[in-house]
């Protein structure tokens, strides 16, 4: 039996130019999709293939002829005869600065692709000076909107703080958070409808938070782990991954990925088991799967210990 194919009404095609090359894409497509159709690579961080774009990180900005400012490729829809430049001086400058601003304020060590982009755009986050000491745990969560300590400019402020380890399943390491809003959207109305987390505070002190900064077990969290699935930086990770990284034993090159069907219930979700040294170390779900679209429940995501529970005698 084949997967049902949803037919949408026929769409008009529009002609756009990307870096001088013409491409014809369906009406309503984004600039990013037009770029992909041409094989033009556009870096993205906050863009999520299963979520409505928030265009918050601004690393995908491109120049559209006639527009006063640069526009985010991930969310701006194409228009007839739109002329886009993805590698102009202005674009390169903004991308470089976004990478530098992020790199100087966030721990990007577990964010894929960043070293390569830093290199391509000649970004040097260390230009802003030595990094400030990480904030004590909970200090950032207690900050009042509209106020900050002025400092003297000697160090560059960061969002770094100790990781929040308050349950056995996953770890929130907000020193790595770039505020892409994807976990909030996945937890909220776009997928899970649990609404355990939101954005609190504002400005540089904005942070992902439960109400009153409650620990996860006291919050509405149902441990579906869909927030981990969409996190682009590793700010949210499996407890297993977090601990193995701390021990220095995490090694993706030695891991195999096997996609199979979850056995807990009859829905038929696909799970991808990440296995290192014959142990399941984490579970993801294929985003292009029509059943899950990358989402799982607590059992599919975290209920794997019984598989590797071996008798110790």
């Amino acid at each position, binding site marked *: 039996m084949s997967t049902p194919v949803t037919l949408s009404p026929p769409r008009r095609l529009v002609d756009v130019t990307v870096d001088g090359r013409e491409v014809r894409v369906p009406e309503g497509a984004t600039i990013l999709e037009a770029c992909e159709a041409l094989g033009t690579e556009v870096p993205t961080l906050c863009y999520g293939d299963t979520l409505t774009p*928030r*265009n*918050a*990180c*601004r*690393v995908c*900005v491109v120049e559209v002829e006639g527009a006063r*400012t*640069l526009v*985010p490729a991930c*969310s701006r829809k194409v228009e007839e005869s739109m002329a886009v430049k993805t590698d102009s*001086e*202005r674009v390169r*400058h*903004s991308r470089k*600065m*976004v990478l530098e*601003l*992020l790199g*100087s*304020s966030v721990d990007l060590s577990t964010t894929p692709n960043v070293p390569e982009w830093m290199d391509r755009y000649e970004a040097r986050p260390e*230009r*802003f*000076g030595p990094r400030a000491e990480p904030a004590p745990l909970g200090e950032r969560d*207690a900050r*009042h*909107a*509209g*106020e*900050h300590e*002025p*400092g*003297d*400019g*000697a160090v*560059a*402020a960061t969002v770094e703080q100790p990781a929040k380890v308050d349950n056995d399943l996953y770890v929130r390491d907000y020193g790595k958070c*770039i*505020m892409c809003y994807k976990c909030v959207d996945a937890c*909220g109305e776009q997928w899970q*409808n*649990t*609404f*355990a*987390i*939101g*954005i*609190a*505070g*504002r*400005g*540089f*002190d*904005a942070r992902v*938070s*439960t*109400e*009153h900064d409650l620990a996860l077990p006291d*919050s*509405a969290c149902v441990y579906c782990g869909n927030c981990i699935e969409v996190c682009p930086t590793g700010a949210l990770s499996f407890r297993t991954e977090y601990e193995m990284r701390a021990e220095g034993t995490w090694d993706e090159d030695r891991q195999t990925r096997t996609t199979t069907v979850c056995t807990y219930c009859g829905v038929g979700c696909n799970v991808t088991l990440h296995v290192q040294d014959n142990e399941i170390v984490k579970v993801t779900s294929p985003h292009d799967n029509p059943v899950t679209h990358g989402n799982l429940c607590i059992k599919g995501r975290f209920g794997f210990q019984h598989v590797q529970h071996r008798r110790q005698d």
Partner: protein
Amino acid sequence: MDLHFLDAVPDDTEREAVDSVLGPPESGWDGGLRQASDLRFAEGGHAARGRRDLLLPALHAVNDRVGWISPAALDYICRRLTVPPAEAYGVASFYAMFALKERPRRVVHVCTDIACAARGSDSLCAAMTERVGPPGTGDGDLVWHESPCLGMCERAPAALSLEAGDPPRYAVAAPARPGDLVTGAGSPPGTGAPHPAAESAPAAPAEAAPASPNGSGPHPGTGSPNGHRPRRTTTFSPDTLPGPAPEPPPAAAVPQAGDPGLVLLRRIGVVDPESLDDYRANGGYAALRAALAMGPSAVIREVTDSGLVGRGGAAFPTGRKWEGTARRPETPRYVVCNADESEPGTFKDRVLMEGDPFAVIEALTIAGYANGAAQGYLYIRGEYPRALSRLENAIAKARGRNLLGRDILGSGFDFDIEIRRGAGAYICGEETAIFNSIEGLRGEPRSKPPFPVERGLFGRPTAINNVETLANVLPIMLMGGPAYAAIGTGRSTGPKLFCVSGAVPRPGVFEVPFGATLRELLELAGLGADAPAPRAVLLGGAAGGFVRGDELDIPLTFEGAREAGATLGSGVVLVLDDSVDLGAILVRIAAFFRDESCGQCVPCRVGTVRQEEALLRLSRGTGTRRTDLALLREVGQAMRDASICGLGQTAWNAVESAIDRLGVFGPDDHPTLKEAR
């Protein structure tokens, strides 16, 4: 939606405060006592969530009454509105005026923004620290905070005291002395100086009664489509807090008051702002009658012919905006008055709202008529208690006389206005952030397109105009578009308000036709022709730019300012003399943008921090000048190019102009981007 609540129980005061806005709960499903019958049905879903826009009023109710929002109170609000607690916490923690930790009932906001900093707010803060403790701490009776611009720049330095209670009270001290701010804390209500408003109209219960109990308004007996009705006509007590001298009347901020040649300021100081009769006796509501006689499309035509452009800073043609909204097929459509005037140095909208509040209401009614809207929202910043009281009074009186409500003046046109109070967030003056704030979301700007005329408030076509822009609609209705267009210059038509503050003998709001020069304006403000040229003038506010004292011949028109590489912005003219430390002013501007960034996009969220750090180094002489100037330019360019909204896009303007035009940090060799790398 299966929401997870805390088990905290609100106390009676908190519960009463919330119920005063939302009405009593109907069942155990929305926070009431759980009864057996509640088990036989389920409630929630879209209908319950449809009241999400009452989140901000409910948060205000608790904060006003108790002084802070406890976890139990927040939880109760969430149950009442079916809002997830994590989201409500995100909203409450977005606004500077809400406290989520217990604090004293009295909060003193001391303005440290540009105009007040130039007029000695430092010593005020030092005195407060000495008497009360550092900002954010209290002695049990009161707590004080440094505040962004309070909009009282003409009598800087300013301070605002707010005291929680039922009703809450406030007092304004400007110019403020340290003694004004700490006396009288904890005193019982009614012991203070009478509010000036109280003299002319003590609550006026008869006139302020609901328009009609049986639903002669568009939303029977209510001010809002979802049943929101404040308990009292005015939020704040008419008795101000004891201590500071009584607040001067609004006309004190208008040195030209009484001049018969004035158009927008003509009634300020002339009419009693609390009296509808007085307003009508001075030409009030003639413009609405004229508009109703000519029909909506003719109103839009007159506005288009007038050449009126928005006065909030962006200068978009008002007629085009209205035409775009009115033409949309979707209904309902909304009109919104942007009264969230928070640009440092700007106070013209406050003076208009305090001195001529019925004019704002009348103009918004005309906007509603022209755009085919039955509901208007007036979003006013939380730092303007007197303007809020005056507008609340004006709306209640207009309802009582069928100037709002159903079938206005027998025309068949239904329209009502609801006031929404901001809670301390400059970003909420951005047109799309206002929509989010009204809808009960965090005040983050939305990406444009789609523009408000297509998808604005509640996803519907919305025309949003600044207070001063709306004030111009009245003379346009009365004199006709072409006659209005004859005032001013070719592209900049009509009269324009400027907020002159700083080192001038007569600071205040001035009305001049477009085309006057900066020098002429400053002469009106008492800067004689033989006075020494000021060191610098900040034109257009923190999002505008500095011009030098020898550039006073700049014509005050949109095109003239642009030609001179400046902007009129929101009409700020802040004059700085040699006594001012410009480096410190720039650091304050940077701190302002850092505090007020919503934090949504990276260029603004982190860029404003890096900008402040570089300016701190430059103004203190630490670090390397050339490197820091290059960093500022690079960060500034990215903020301008890649930020989501105007806040980030303009955060670098004033600093750049100070470096380039004033040479604040010495001569700069303008390294290009390539060199700086």
